[in-house]
């Protein structure tokens, strides 16, 4: 496995006229995980998108080695297609093998994505992320809509990913049961 790294330097984010946070910096190497915490609207999702390179930071920059995968509130799965086909599309784009992590989707592969429940859709999005083969996982509220059982499975999948030398950044307002988790509270970075 090639080494991977994700580092942020002095990031600030402005949405409209409002500065959401500033002075956010961290460095993660293989096997590490970071929990972004803070109340709604403080900029967790914006920070995720800045890390993913989808949003320009108002200040600072991000460096990364290794491919990144993002899971946010939009699963990027065709609503009308059966789940199996919708996931197969991304497998072909990513040229990745079968997902290592199992999210209990075998029985749902024939079901069109639009008929899936919120939790099932979340599991499908996590399965897509896990199958992508990316070394850096950016997870925006990965436990939203998951029950206790699948919440624990999702965290087990994150642990397995870290054990193989991957990085995980998790934005969540829920407590996480992960080993040696680093925490970054955006409340400490208010302007």
């Amino acid at each position: 496995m090639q080494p991977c790294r994700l580092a942020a330097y002095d990031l600030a984010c402005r949405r409209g006229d409002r500065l959401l946070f500033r002075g956010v910096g961290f460095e993660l190497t293989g096997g590490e995980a970071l929990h972004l915490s803070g109340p709604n609207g403080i900029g967790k999702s914006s920070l995720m998108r800045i890390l993913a390179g989808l949003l320009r930071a108002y200040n600072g920059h991000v460096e990364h080695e290794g491919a990144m995968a993002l899971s946010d509130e939009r699963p990027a799965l065709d609503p009308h297609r059966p789940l199996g086909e919708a996931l197969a599309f991304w497998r072909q784009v990513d040229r990745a093998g079968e997902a290592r992590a199992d999210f209990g989707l075998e029985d749902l592969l024939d079901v069109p994505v639009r008929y899936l429940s919120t939790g099932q859709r979340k599991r499908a999005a996590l399965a897509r992320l896990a199958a992508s083969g990316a070394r850096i996982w950016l997870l925006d509220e990965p436990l939203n809509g998951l029950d206790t059982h699948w919440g624990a499975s999702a965290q087990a999948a994150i642990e397995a990913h870290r054990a193989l030398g991957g990085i995980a950044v998790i934005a969540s307002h829920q407590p996480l049961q992960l080993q040696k988790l680093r925490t970054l509270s955006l409340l400490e970075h208010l302007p």
Partner: protein
Amino acid sequence: MRALWTIFRRDLTLLLMGAPGRGGALLPLLFFLAVAMLYPFAVGPDAKLLARTGAGVIWVAALLAAILPLDRLVEPDLEAGFFDQWALRGIAEEGVLALRILAHWLSFGVPLMLAAPLAAGLLNLDGAQLWTVELGLLLGTPGLAAIGVTIAALTAGLRAGAALGGLLAIPLTVPLLIFGAGSLQPGGEGGLLLLAASSLAALAIAPFAAAGAIRAGRE
């Protein structure tokens, strides 16, 4: 490259076959034929009048048929997060959108060309006129597809984006309409060259303009 091929196959399937809420290629085609069918009812069965004005009607119908699928060209994929996921994988928006123009053209331009003989029959066009119409559609519909995808990218995510898209498309496609319909006038053969030129210009600019619109929409 293989990722782009996979994306193109998905685009083409979605645009040809449609999906719930996405219509497919049949709708613009039926719309096009419906206009060609209604026109003689509206102006009366004067064969000479139909033959003189019919080709222009075909062009107006083609233009309106191109506007019809605008709201499903980009919006659903943007909404579902596909463009973000592609960007994350380093797949350039320009490439995705250039392929989408091709898929859109294959799903509306080619069916229109196939339906044009039928429309020509309804409008009493002769063989030579039909030939010019087909040639004009071949040269002009790629430009319509390029303008359509650009406008779809520009208005995706806006409220009332579909209505706004239609309004924006009309002035931008006027040159194609003028040269396309003009090529059918006596001595208007030069119109085809101007049509091809406008089409090429639209095709050259569109992927970059549309990609810029998608990126700007993220801010």
